[in-house]
C-alpha cells in the first residue's frame, strides 16, 4: 500500500528555550534567547564559551524522563521530547498501527563515555561500565523506543548536523512505502566536552552569543536538546484522535563532496538540497513563505548557505532567519528541533527573528527577519540542515 501524503500529527521539543513545546513557543515569541554561560557541563572552558544549554540538571531530567540515574543526557533529552510528541499525536500501544521510531544523534552517550574514559585511560580496570554501556548512538534510540513501546521499526541515523533532518524524511519514506503507518522522527544531542573541545579546535566557536548571517559573526554557540515530529499516513490519521499540524511535502539529501568539514564556497550542496526539496514538493520557489536556515553563524556556513540562497531565489528571497541564535547549534538534534519550529511556522504563521543581527554579509547579503512576527499567509516553510562530511538536507513543511 502506498500513501502519497505524509502528515505531521505531533510535536515534541526540549531545548535551551525550555522544557517543552509551550516553553519553547513562549521564548520564541518573546525573543528570549536560551544562550548563556555553561552551568551543568563540567569543563575547563566553563567560563569561556556561551552555549544553548538545557536549563535542567541530569537529576531533573532523570526524574522527568523516568530513566535511571546515570543515563546519558542524550537519552534523557530524547525521552522527554519523544514522549511529548508521542502523546501529542494521541499515540498509544493499542492503536494497531505500525509505529516506528527514527532518531538521530552524532555522539550518542559520549557525555558519559568521556567520564568513563577519564578513569579508564589511566587504568584499564577503572571506569564504571554503566557509563560506557550507552555509548553507541543507537543505544539511546532503543532505550527511548522501549519506553514508548515502539518496536516495529527502530532506527538511528548519524550524519553530523543533518542527522535528524535525514531521520525525519527516512521515516516519511518508510511510511510512503507502506512499511510504517506512523513514525516518531527527529533527534537529540547533549553538550559534551568532546564536542565542545572538538569545535574549539576548529576555531569556530564564539565566546559570546552568536550572530548568524552577520558580517561580523565570530562563530557558533553549541547547544543541546531534542526535537521530534510525529509523521502519519492518511490511514493512520483515521485511527488517531489527534489534530493535523501540516504535511511534510518535500525533502532532499545530497553530498557537497567538497571537503571534510567546510562547505563549498558556491554553496553547491546547499543549493542542490533546497532545489531538490522544492522539486519533490512540486512547489515553485515563490511559494515558500519562510526559510529556517541552517545558519550556524560560522564564516563558512553562512556564506555558503547565503550564496546558495541568493543563487536559488535571486531578488525574491522569502522571509528567513536562523533560530540557532535562540538555541545554539544542537548538532544531531538541530534538524529535529528546527522541524518543530518550522511546523509551528506553517501552523501559526510564526516568523522567528534572527537575533542579534546587525550588518548583512558583504559577499552574500541576506536580510533576515529581526523581530518576531505572525504572518498567516505562510503556507510553505523550508528548513535547512547541513553537516560535516558534506551531508546537506532540506525539508519542506506545507499547510494542509
Amino acid at each position, binding site marked *: 500500500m502506498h500513501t502519497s501524503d505524509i502528515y505531521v500529527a505531533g510535536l515534541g521539543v526540549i531545548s535551551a528555550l525550555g522544557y517543552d513545546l509551550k516553553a519553547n513557543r513562549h521564548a520564541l515569541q518573546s525573543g528570549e534567547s536560551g544562550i548563556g554561560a555553561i552551568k551543568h557541563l563540567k569543563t575547563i572552558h566553563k567560563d569561556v564559551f556561551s552555549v544553548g544549554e538545557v536549563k535542567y540538571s541530569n537529576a531533573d531530567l532523570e526524574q522527568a524522563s523516568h530513566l535511571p540515574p546515570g543515563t546519558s543526557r542524550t537519552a534523557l533529552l530524547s525521552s522527554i521530547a519523544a514522549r511529548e510528541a508521542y502523546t501529542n499525536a494521541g499515540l498509544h500501544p493499542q492503536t494497531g498501527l505500525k509505529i516506528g521510531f527514527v532518531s538521530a544523534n552524532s555522539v550518542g552517550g559520549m557525555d558519559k563515555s568521556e567520564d568513563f574514559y577519564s578513569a579508564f585511560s589511566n587504568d584499564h580496570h577503572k571506569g564504571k561500565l554503566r557509563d560506557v554501556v550507552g555509548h553507541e548512538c543507537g*543505544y539511546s*534510540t*532503543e532505550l527511548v523506543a522501549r519506553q514508548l513501546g515502539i518496536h516495529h521499526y527502530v532506527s538511528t541515523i548519524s550524519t553530523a548536523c543533518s542527522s535528524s533532518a535525514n531521520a525525519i524524511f527516512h521515516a516519511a519514506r518508510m511510511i510512503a512505502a507502506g512499511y510504517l503507518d506512523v513514525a516518531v522522527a527527529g533527534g537529540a544531542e547533549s553538550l559534551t566536552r568532546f564536542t565542545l573541545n572538538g569545535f574549539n579546535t576548529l576555531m569556530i566557536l564564539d565566546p559570546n552569543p552568536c550572530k548568524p548571517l552577520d558580517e561580523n559573526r565570530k562563530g557558533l554557540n553549541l547547544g543541546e536538546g531534542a526535537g521530534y515530529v510525529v509523521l502519519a499516513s492518511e490511514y493512520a490519521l483515521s485511527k488517531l484522535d489527534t489534530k493535523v499540524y501540516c504535511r511534510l511535502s518535500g525533502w532532499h539529501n545530497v553530498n557537497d563532496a567538497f571537503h571534510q568539514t567546510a562547505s563549498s564556497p558556491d554553496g553547491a550542496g546547499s543549493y542542490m538540497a533546497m532545489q531538490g526539496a522544492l522539486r519533490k514538493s512540486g512547489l515553485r520557489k515563490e511559494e515558500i513563505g519562510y526559510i529556517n536556515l541552517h545558519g550556524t553563524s560560522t564564516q563558512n556556513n553562512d556564506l555558503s548557505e547565503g550564496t546558495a540562497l541568493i543563487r536559488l531565489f535571486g531578488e525574491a528571497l522569502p522571509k528567513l532567519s536562523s533560530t540557532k541564535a535562540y538555541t545554539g547549534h544542537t548538532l544531531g538534534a538541530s534538524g529535529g528541533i528546527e522541524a518543530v519550529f518550522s511546523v509551528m511556522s506553517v501552523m501559526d504563521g510564526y516568523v522567528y527573528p534572527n537575533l542579534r543581527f546587525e550588518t548583512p554579509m558583504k559577499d552574500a547579503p541576506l536580510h533576515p527577519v529581526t523581530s518576531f512576527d505572525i504572518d498567516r499567509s505562510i503556507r510553505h516553510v523550508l528548513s535547512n540542515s547541513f553537516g560535516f562530511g558534506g551531508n546537506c538536507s532540506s525539508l519542506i513543511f506545507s499547510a494542509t
Partner: protein
Amino acid sequence: MTKKVYIRSVGMISPQVTFAQEVPLGISTIHEGRRMNAIEPDYKIIFGPKSIRRMSRIIRMGSAAAVECMYHSGLIMPDAIITGTAYGCLEDTIIFLNKMEENKEEMLTPTAFIQSTHNSVGAQIALSIKCQGYNNTFVNRGLSFEQALLDAMLLIEEGDVTNVLVGGIDEITNTSHAILSRFDLYRSAKSDLLIEQPGKGTMAGEGAGFFLISSEASTSDMAVIEHLSMKFDPDEKLNTAQWINDVLSDLQMKLSDIDLFILGHNGDLRNDGTYESLQQAIGDSAPIAYFKHLCGEYPTASSFGLWLAASSLKNGRVPFSAEDFLQLDASSRVLMYNSASNGHHSLMLLSAC
C-alpha cells in the same frame, strides 16, 4: 518491493583473504585468541600517500572495500552512498579522548575530531569520487547494515536512483576491545572451532563490506536480493522459526525451498540458543553454513554474511568450505539469518541470477 534488486559487485575486507579475490580461496585463515583482525591491503598503493594521511584505519578499510566494489561494478559513480556502522570511527574518537585527557582540554588539534563522526566513511567515499548523490549513515547497533541496505532498496523502489553503493563497517581497536572485553563478551578460541565448540563468549571481529546494488540487470550480477526483513525484539518474545516461516509464506515459499542456510551463530552458548528452533525446523532439508568463525562477531557482521551468500551464488560454492559441501546453481536460493544480542534479528533471502 516491486523492483528486482541485483547485487552487481562486492568489495570485502575481513579477517579472511577476501579483498581483491576474483574467487575466494578455499582455505580459511585461522585466528587464535579473543579477536580476529582484518587482513588488510597496502593502502598506500590504492590511495597514494597524499590521500591516506587523513584517513584513519576504518576510513581506509571502508574506502578500499568501496573502491574494489565500484571497480567490479563497471560504473564510474553510484547514484547514492549509504553506510551502516554501529561503533563509527573508534580510533579517532579514542585519539581525541586521549588528547583531551592528557592535555586537560587545552591545545587540542582538529584532525581526530573531524574524522570521528560516524558518517566519515560515507563522506570520504563521496569526497574521493565527487559523488553528490544521496548520502546517509545508519548507526543502529546490530541492525546498522540492514537498515542501510533497506534504505538503499527503498531508494531504488522509489525510482529516482538505479545504483546504490551500500556498506557495513566496524573496527576493533585495542582500546575498544579492552572496554568491550570487560562486558564479558569474548573468550579465547581457535576460530575454526569457534562454532563447533561453543562456550561462554565469542571472538571479536571487524570488517568492511560494500555492495553495489542495482535495479538494472547486468552480465556480472552475483545474486538477486529477494527479501530483507528485520526485527527489534529486546524482550526476547520472538519465535524465530515462526517468523521466518511467516516471511517465506508471504513470498509463497517454504523452508524446504531454500537450498542453503547461512546462520549467524557466534559460538557463544548464551547467544546461539536463538537458532535452535530454526535449526530444528530446517532439519535435513538443506545444508547450513556459518560465517562468524570466518569474520568474528561485530555489529555489522551481517555484511560479511551477505558477502558469503552472494559469493556462494556467484561461484556455485560456499567460500572457505569443503569442496564437497554444496554445489549451487542458477535456481538456488540462499537464506541468511543473523541474530546479534540485544534483540536484533535480520533475514535476507537471495537467489541466483
